[in-house]
C-alpha cells in the first residue's frame, strides 16, 4: 500500500512540475526577471522554454532532414543504453573498491582513521578537474593487444563517485552487529572471515541497499558529466551537448536527452529496488538512507 502511494505521489510530482512549467511560461514576464545584471528567472520565450507538447513532438520526429534519420527518441534511448553500460561498469568497480575499503577499515582500526579522511577529501575534488587527468592517463595504457578506450575513462570517473557511498554504507553495516552477536561468534571460535561471512555481511545488507542506490545514482551522474567533459562518443552526455548546440534553431530538441538522462536514473533506482526485493529476509531492520 505504501509502495502504491509512493508511485502516485511521484507521478503527481512530475505532473506538478509540468504544470508549473507551462504556468510560468504563460504568466511569467516575457523578459524573465533580472536584478543587478543577473538573470534570476528565465525568459518565457519559446526559445528558452519550449512548450511541453513541442518537446514531445520533437522527440517523436527524426533527428535531422537526412532520409535515413532515426527518430530522436530512438537515438536518445540508444545513447542512454550505452551510458548505462558504462555506468554499470563504473558502479561495479566502485562497489567492489568501496566494499574492499570498508573491509580494510573494519579489519584495521588504524586504517579507519587513516583512510576515512582521504575518502571524504577525495569526494571534494571537482569531477571536471579530474576528467582530463584520467583521460590522459588512460591514453598511456597499452598492454599488448589491449587499448584503453575513452569509455573506460568515463567508467573510472563514474566509479570514483560510486565507491564513496558504498564504502561508507558498507562500513556502517559491517560494524552494525551488537557486541553480544560478535561475542557469540567469538564463543563459536569463528575467525574474522567467518564472522564477516556469517554475521557482518548479512547484517550489513540493510545498509548496503541504500548505499548502492546512492552509488548507482552517483555513477550515472558521473558518467554523464564525464561524457560531457571528456567528449566520449556514443553516450547521452555527448548527445546533451550536441543537441544543446542546435539550440537556437531547434530549442525543443535539447530536452529529449535531458529527459532521457532523468529516466535512466529512475530506471536504475528501479533495478536496485528489484534486486533489494530478493534480499527480503535480510532487511527486517532496514535503516533509512
Amino acid at each position, binding site marked *: 500500500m505504501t509502495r502504491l502511494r509512493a508511485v502516485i505521489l511521484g507521478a503527481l510530482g512530475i505532473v506538478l512540475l509540468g504544470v508549473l512549467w507551462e504556468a510560468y511560461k504563460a504568466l511569467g514576464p516575457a523578459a524573465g526577471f533580472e536584478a543587478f545584471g543577473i538573470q534570476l528567472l528565465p525568459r518565457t520565450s519559446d526559445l528558452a522554454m519550449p512548450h511541453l507538447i513541442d518537446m514531445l513532438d520533437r522527440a517523436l520526429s527524426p533527428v535531422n532532414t537526412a532520409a535515413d534519420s532515426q527518430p530522436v527518441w530512438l537515438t536518445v534511448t540508444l545513447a542512454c543504453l550505452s551510458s548505462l553500460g558504462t555506468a554499470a561498469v563504473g558502479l561495479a568497480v566502485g562497489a567492489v573498491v568501496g566494499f574492499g575499503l570498508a573491509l580494510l577499515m573494519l579489519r584495521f582500526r588504524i586504517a579507519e582513521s587513516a583512510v576515512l579522511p582521504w575518502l571524504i577529501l577525495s569526494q571534494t575534488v571537482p569531477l571536471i578537474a579530474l576528467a582530463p587527468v584520467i583521460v590522459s592517463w588512460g591514453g598511456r595504457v597499452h598492454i599488448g593487444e589491449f587499448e584503453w578506450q575513452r569509455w573506460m575513462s568515463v567508467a573510472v570517473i563514474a566509479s570514483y563517485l560510486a565507491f564513496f557511498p558504498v564504502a561508507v554504507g558498507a562500513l556502517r553495516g559491517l560494524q552494525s552487529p551488537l557486541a*553480544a552477536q560478535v*561475542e*557469540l561468534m567469538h*564463543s*563459536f*571460535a569463528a575467525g574474522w572471515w*567467518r564472522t564477516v561471512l*556469517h554475521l557482518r555481511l548479512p547484517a550489513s545488507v540493510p545498509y548496503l541497499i541504500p548505499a548502492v542506490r546512492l552509488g548507482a545514482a552517483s555513477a550515472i551522474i558521473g558518467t554523464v558529466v564525464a561524457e560531457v567533459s571528456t567528449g566520449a562518443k556514443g553516450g547521452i552526455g555527448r548527445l546533451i551537448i550536441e543537441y544543446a548546440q542546435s539550440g537556437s534553431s531547434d530549442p525543443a530538441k535539447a530536452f529529449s536527452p535531458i529527459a532521457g538522462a532523468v529516466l535512466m536514473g529512475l530506471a536504475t533506482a528501479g533495478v536496485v529496488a528489484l534486486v533489494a526485493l530478493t534480499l527480503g*529476509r535480510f532487511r*527486517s531492520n532496514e535503516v533509512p538512507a
Partner: protein
Amino acid sequence: MTAVQVTGVTKTFTTKAGLVTALDDVDLTVEKGEFVSLIGPSGCGKSTLLRLIADLDTPTSGVIEVFGKSARQARLDQDYGIAFQTAGLLPWRSVAANIELPLQLHGVDRVGRRQRVAQLIELVGLGDFARSFPEQLSGGMQQRVAIARSLAERPELLLMDEPFGALDEMTRERMQSELVRISAETGAAVIFVTHSIPEAVFLSDRVVVMSPRPGRIRKVIDVKLGDARGEGLREESAFFASVTEVREALHGAPATGTARGVDTR
C-alpha cells in the same frame, strides 16, 4: 575430573570513574556433570565470572582451567555451549538455521546438521517452528532456540547467564524442568546465573552465593534434593529449607528483608 577450575581470579575494569574490582580472588571448582548456580545482588560479578570462563574476557590475575585446558583452548575446542540473557538470534536465519549455526561453522556436513537440528528442535519442543523466523517467536520461544543452539555441539559444559530472566513465571518453571531434564540427559556440567533463589535451589547441586564490591564468593551451599527433581519438589520442606539457607547467606544473617536486586520468587 573437574569441568571448571577457577583459582585466585581477580578481574578489574578501568573506567572513567576509576578502578572497578568486579571479581576479587575468586576460587571455584565445578565437577563434571554438576549443576552450579551463581546468585548474588546486581553487580557482584556473576556475568563477569561466566565471561571469563567462556574466554570472552581475560582475568586480570589468576588462572581458569576448563577440562584441564586453558579457557582459550577450551573455547577453540568448543568444549562449552553458551546462552546469554538475551537470546541473541540472528534475525535473518530461521529457527533451524540459527540452531545450525555452530555446526555449520565447524564444518559438520549437511546431513549431520539436519539430523542434529531435528533432534534439538524436538528437545526444546519447537517442532512446529523450525522454519519460523525469530521475530515470529515469543521471547520464551526465542530463549529455547538459544538453548538448543548452545546444546548443538553436545558440550560437556553449559554456561547460562539468566537465560530465563525475560520469561513469565509459568514458562519459566516449565523451562526449568526442561533444563533439569536436558542436563540429566546430556550429563553436561552447568554454570547457571540467576537472580531467583527458588530457581537456583530447584536446579542446582550447589548454589554459589556472591557479594558485591568487590565481587567475592560469600558461601557455597550444597542442595541435597536428590536426582528426582519433579514438579512436586517445589512443595517439599527440603526445598524450602534450602531456599531459606540461600536467603540467609545472601543477607549475611538470618533473613529479615530481601536483598537488593534479588527476588525471592
